């Protein structure tokens, strides 16, 4: 987390959106994540999506848990209220915030450690309740802030930076979201901006539980034994008076490929991802079909990306609870307090 603000100076000729905002209006503080982190690419996509949608930045509430991904809300929408809550419990805080004021846009940012482990229950229940939100998981399969432990989305057989082999099965958050009744389900890759930006924009506009799983490579993967850039190597070859942890920056990974094709992406640690972008004629209104499609390609070792499912007639939690249109946080004593006369009647009924 940083408090380094970006300079406010900008070129007067920068492009403006329909509300007259420039990109800079959607930016936050300077990121302190590792250079090359996929999460920064997602931040850039969120900024782009909000710019393109001409959202009033202050009308967004951005809520996260704890972890690398959960730091990112500080790096976009600097004029929005943010909330860095506790590990894995973003969904409940967001649910409460949404109940209090249905007029704002709720952007939930989480990580795979956050949502697939400690917060798995909250992830599931916020989805099944249909909370109106864009829930983005920045998924790198590892605990970055505690330096490299497997998360629950790490593939079975994958190796940690210490060479430990993961023997547990991975949780596929997209498959779970589909099963739980999410009404907008997508997966993307942090470096595929052309795909990710419209997916985020769609999730923000969707009224209901929108979930996007974004595969986001972690630069810390690239820090295993044998590397000349590893912590140990640097320490052994370093005569400095301080003992420092150093992560060497890399360029962000970007991809651009056509719908219906498979793209092999090499990550910083040399592992390869097979991304399959869904076909242009794929029907995203068929939940069962989406689940089958996902599983079929998972069996081939492919990670399906794109908008997998959307229900255009989705309802949200407020609809289920039949709440008034006015935000609950605006109701005053006149609207809420039944008054002494009603209390007298209650007293009478209790005698």
């Amino acid at each position: 987390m940083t408090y380094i603000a970006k300079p406010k100076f900008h070129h007067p000729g920068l492009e403006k959106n329909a509300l007259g905002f420039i990109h800079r209006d959607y930016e936050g503080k300077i990121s302190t994540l590792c250079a090359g982190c996929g999460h920064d690419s997602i931040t850039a996509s969120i900024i782009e999506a909000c710019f393109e949608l001409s959202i009033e930045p202050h009308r967004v509430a951005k809520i996260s848990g704890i972890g690398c991904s959960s730091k990112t809300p500080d790096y976009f929408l600097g004029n929005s209220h943010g909330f860095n809550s506790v590990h894995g419990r973003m969904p409940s805080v967001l649910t409460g915030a949404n109940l209090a004021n249905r007029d704002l846009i709720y952007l939930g940012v989480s990580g795979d450690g956050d949502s697939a482990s400690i917060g798995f229950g909250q992830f599931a229940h916020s989805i099944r309740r249909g909370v109106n939100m864009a829930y983005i998981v920045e998924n790198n399969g590892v605990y970055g802030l505690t330096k490299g432990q497997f998360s629950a989305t790490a593939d079975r057989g994958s190796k940690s930076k210490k060479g430990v082999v993961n023997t547990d099965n991975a949780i596929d958050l997209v498959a779970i979201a589909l099963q739980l009744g999410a009404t907008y389900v997508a997966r993307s890759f942090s470096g595929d901006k052309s795909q990710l930006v419209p997916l985020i924009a769609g999730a923000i506009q969707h009224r209901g539980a929108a979930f996007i799983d974004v595969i986001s490579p972690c630069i810390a993967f690239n820090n295993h034994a044998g590397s000349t850039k590893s912590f140990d190597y640097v320490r052994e070859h370093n005569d400095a008076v301080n003992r420092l942890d150093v992560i060497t920056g890399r360029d962000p990974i970007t991809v651009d490929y056509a719908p219906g094709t498979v793209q092999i992406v090499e990550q910083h640690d040399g592992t390869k991802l097979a991304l399959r972008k869904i076909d242009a004629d794929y029907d995203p209104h068929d939940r069962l079909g989406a689940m089958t499609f996902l599983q079929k390609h998972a069996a081939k070792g492919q990670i399906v990306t794109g908008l997998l499912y959307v229900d255009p007639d989705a309802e949200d939690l407020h609809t289920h609870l039949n709440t008034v249109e006015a935000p609950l946080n605006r109701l005053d004593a006149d609207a809420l307090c039944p008054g002494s006369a009603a209390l007298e009647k209650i007293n009478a009924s209790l005698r």
Partner: protein
Amino acid sequence: MPDKKPLSSVNDFVVRFANVNGSGSASANELFARAVLRHGVPVSPRNIFPSNIQGLPTWYEVRVTEEGHLGARGGVDMMVAMNPQTWDKDVAGIEPGGYLFYDSTKPMPSSKFRDDITVIGVPLTAIANSTYTDPRQRQLFKNIIYLGALCALFDMDPKLIEQLIGEQYKGKEKLLSSNVHALHLGRDWALQNLKCPIGLRIKKADKVGDRIFIEGNSAAALGAVYGGATVCAWYPITPSSSVAEAFTSHCQKLRHDPETGKAKYAIVQGEDELASIGIVIGASWNGARAFTATSGPGISLMTEFIGLSYFAEIPAVIMNIQRAGPSTGMPTRTQQCDIIACAYASHGDTKHVLLFPEDPAEAFEFAAAAFDLAERLQTVIFLMLDLDIGMNHRLSRPLKWDDSRQYDRGKIMTAEMLDEGRDFGRYLDVDGDGIPYRTYPGTHPTKGSFFTRGTSRDRYARYSEEGSVYADNMQRLVRKFETAQDLVPRPLQANAAKPTKYGVIYFGSTAPAMDEAIGLLEARGHQLDRMRIRAFPFHSSVASFIADHDFVYVVEQNRDGQLRQLIVNENGIDPVRLVPILHYDGTPITARFIANAIGDHQDHLKVTPLRKAVS
């Protein structure tokens, strides 16, 4: 004739019903309590039930008390023994000269009775079986039949009971007439076959006045409605579930927009306690009044979030209906055992505001006030009820509301204030009271936004691990807690009839028993000044009260003297000056227990040391 003279009393005795959980006896037993009330005679009932659904023993005790004592008395004058499983214990618990009422359908050996009590047998099963064919009806109406027999034995007016049945089954004529019929089956049998009335009698009086009969949980839920709570998130746990259920019920009646029919509230049954408090914190952060209700195990689960609420300064109201711990403890038994857990909930240096209502009326008032306090102080407020208040019907003064009262929304910086150029720093102590201003999300396009976090930050909400910045923030939180002293309900103090060197401190559900115990102690020649603590942080008068006495008894319902610990810790009092009087077997504390414990201690003080007497 029993070898002890049968007890004789009008409007002052204890009846205990021993039943089997799930037998449908609860409504009949409550009907009895209500029927006594309709005679104008105060009652103090207590439900003693197991933590299961069916099959285990359950008791319902009604203290008939024209004097209006609302605490448990201890001892049983009449046992309605309907559970063979607990027969021996039930019979043993009857006061000498008391009465045993039982189902005499099957003969019992004389060894199962006592010589010093009056035994009253009514063939309840036989009467029910000869009237009804359906097994469930036989069981349910057996309860009403014994109610009818008691009506005759206690000389009660059957019309008043019929009236109550009529109110209960309004619009359900078939149920109404069949219940009335069962009532008279029992009453007629008793009148024809027994000597009625017995020594214990209910006589019409005018001692109830305008008081209401309500459970503390329901009153607290109503307080939340009147206090403006719009978001309730909860997870079922005994003995707190009925708070959320009552809030739901009250809201359904009182909180719908008349034009659209839409709800001016949101209630979510969370997936667990963590989610429930998370929803409350999210809603409060966004400007809604929100609360959860739980019990000790739920508090344990919520503590991480409670720490966030404290440090990030987000209002939250938690109603803790305490039960016997630790761990699962005795889920359906009462204690005051979460004092320390709530006062210092979560890791690091934390302190939380606790409110201790004594009865349903205060549960209502304090619940409503909790939302004002939470927003004024921007912190978590615990409403500390317990099972004894929460799940038992109590006679209570009527609930009152001042229509001119406006909600205290605390220090909110609006868009207009920001436009006026007011300096907004989320954690700035502008007024020196430790309470900063906050803004709601969405307030202003360019001003007033901030990042809420549980990590350390400076006065402008900017992340900082600077030691002096952290310490500055922690000191301000202490200032805020000091400010709370004058905002929370003050202790109530009453002096003894004669000057005394001794005092007693108590709180919450101990109050009715304490009121009665003072009289018993006076009768033994002991005078005590008393103070009822109603909130933490403690008002300065608590320390003064202790300083003014040689020593002070602290009466509480837990093993470790948790309130005493808190007083010692927070006020730097010499522990020797606070004498613990502790009751923690899961039953409500009684006047007899308090009077005996304090009285014995006081008696020892009066013994002159032998050496001194000789010299």
